[in-house]
């Protein structure tokens, strides 16, 4: 089959690789009909997350049709359309029973490695390094799904691929980002990053009833998409984020701050972000946490910082004393996708939201590598790429 394969830093190729096979009775194989390039795939593209190996198939946003099931599968039938969540979960362990699906204790087949690196293991993820199981990803024609009885979302017949695809990651990720901010109807919610997850977080915050949503980015196309949902926008290249946020909140600061940027914050004109860029390039720091610093500074006392943006390792110069004295609450983590997807599927089906608004580029799988570069460099007004194997 054809698949997008990671060969090293900024080196992704469309290769012919062996088809996946059932390896365990709890597996299923799906024929991928749609998959997407995620912003967090760019962290792998830039080799920012450790434990990738040349030859790994990437991709963790995918959906398709069941074509084969293992002998222990009871909830899936051949021909069914499913979205596959990026977090693999068993539905049996203590964390899954609590709803903490991204912390599943059974699905990471490299759990011992994860124990050493993270202190305690996290769930297996598709196409996202050997720290999280080394499972092949879904930017491919076929995908093996472990724990398939619990690692799927059934797609109603009424829903198109483009409407359903993002149930596997960015929609629940934006949703969880807003939910963990515990949004109240009086809240001003500031969201850094108007990429795909940021766009979903904006819509989620509005659905959850935020009084005002303010979005911070620098790209006009992304800000125009944010404004389309009713968000206020700040272009951080044109104005001071802190001054504008204080102005919009009568000097109090936003009640809730959401970081949809993560470890590769744009190296803007701030000294701290330029230093981060240098330190990252010289391997003195793994992540660029400018957004975290700005959120801690500008957030209202007693506020909540929600962090769906991916961080990979070590961050420097975090003003933790400021955070402590302001009594800020930090909520973060990989998304517990299945905790939210029954509700979100219903909301799409009822027409409350249509996540396909975010798609700007659609192309065959073979053109994926070229579109990685377009997405990476934010060219051609690219916000979200969907590939059709």
């Amino acid at each position, binding site marked *: 089959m054809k698949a997008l394969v990671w060969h090293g830093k*900024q080196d*992704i*190729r*469309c290769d012919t690789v062996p088809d996946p096979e059932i390896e365990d009775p709890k597996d299923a194989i799906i024929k991928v009909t749609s998959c997407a390039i995620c912003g967090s795939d760019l962290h792998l*593209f*830039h080799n920012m997350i450790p434990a990738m190996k040349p030859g790994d198939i990437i991709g963790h946003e995918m959906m398709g049709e069941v074509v084969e099931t293992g002998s222990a599968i009871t909830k899936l039938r051949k021909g069914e359309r499913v979205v596959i969540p990026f977090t693999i979960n068993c539905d049996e362990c203590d964390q899954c029973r609590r709803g903490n699906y991204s912390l599943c204790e059974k699905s990471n087949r490299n759990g011992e490695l994860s124990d050493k690196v993270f202190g305690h293991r996290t769930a297996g993820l598709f196409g996202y390094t050997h720290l999280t199981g080394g499972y092949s990803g879904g930017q491919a024609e076929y995908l093996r799904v472990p724990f398939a009885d619990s690692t799927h979302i059934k797609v109603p017949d009424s829903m198109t691929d*483009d409407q359903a695809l993002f149930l596997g990651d960015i929609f629940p990720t934006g949703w969880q980002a807003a*939910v*963990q901010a*515990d*949004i*109240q109807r009086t809240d001003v919610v500031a969201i850094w990053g108007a990429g795909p997850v940021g766009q979903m977080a904006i*819509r*989620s915050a*509005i*659905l*959850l*009833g935020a009084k005002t949503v303010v979005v911070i980015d620098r*790209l*006009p*196309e*992304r800000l*125009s*998409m944010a404004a*389309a*949902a*009713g968000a206020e926008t700040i272009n951080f290249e044109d104005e001071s984020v802190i001054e504008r946020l204080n102005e919009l909140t009568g000097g109090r600061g936003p*009640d809730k701050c959401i970081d949809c940027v993560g470890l590769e914050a744009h190296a803007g004109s701030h000294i701290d972000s330029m230093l981060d860029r240098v330190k990252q*390039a010289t391997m003195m720091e793994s992540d660029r946490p400018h957004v975290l610093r700005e959120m801690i500074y500008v957030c209202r006392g*007693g506020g*909540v910082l929600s962090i769906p943006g991916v961080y990979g390792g070590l961050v420097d110069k975090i003003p933790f004393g400021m955070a402590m004295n302001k009594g800020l*609450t930090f*909520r973060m983590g990989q998304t517990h996708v299945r905790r939210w997807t029954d509700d979100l599927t219903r*909301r799409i089906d009822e*027409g*409350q*939201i*249509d*996540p*396909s*608004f*975010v*798609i*700007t*580029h*659609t*192309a065959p799988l*073979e*053109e*994926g*590598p*070229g579109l990685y570069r*377009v997405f990476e*460099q934010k*060219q*051609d*007004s*690219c*916000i979200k790429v*969907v590939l059709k194997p």
Partner: protein
Amino acid sequence: MNASSTLVTSRPDRTLTKTDRVARGLGWFSLALGVAEIVAPGKLARALGLEGRERLLQAYGGREIGAGIWALSDTPAPAIWGRVAGDLVDLATLAAGVRDGDESQRRNAWIALGVVGAITAVDLFTAASLTAETSERRGETGRDYSDRSGFPGGAAKARGTAEGFTPIDYQVTATEARKEMETA
């Protein structure tokens, strides 16, 4: 909703072009040369007839290391253009070696001039190619997506549809209502 999505064609099936690979090679070369200039400026100065200019060579070494790190990043084009400028400075410096050195040093400086001249040509071609490739991919920037609210019923109708959804284990905000419940 998805009517304005574009079907992109003729994208390459691999991310790294030949030019990208050459740029990376130049990046590693820059790093190696920079380290040599910083660690052994005396030997280089003697070989090239540049005695007394060891500090200058070390400064060039710093420049090379900076250009090397940048050339290995995800935006190498400015670094390679920077290398072109650096090459011109190097050529001027080596010309001084040709003028001031003894016979052996002049020979070495001429060889170095030839090598740097060839590398300058590679740098120039690579920088121009990277710039052209980036320009080809650039497409239309600043496209207007203000018709993509994502709310089929409109943003006003959507606001607050999920109000009160927050599960109990995600409730972290101090509110007057929660305080009253606590008092009660």
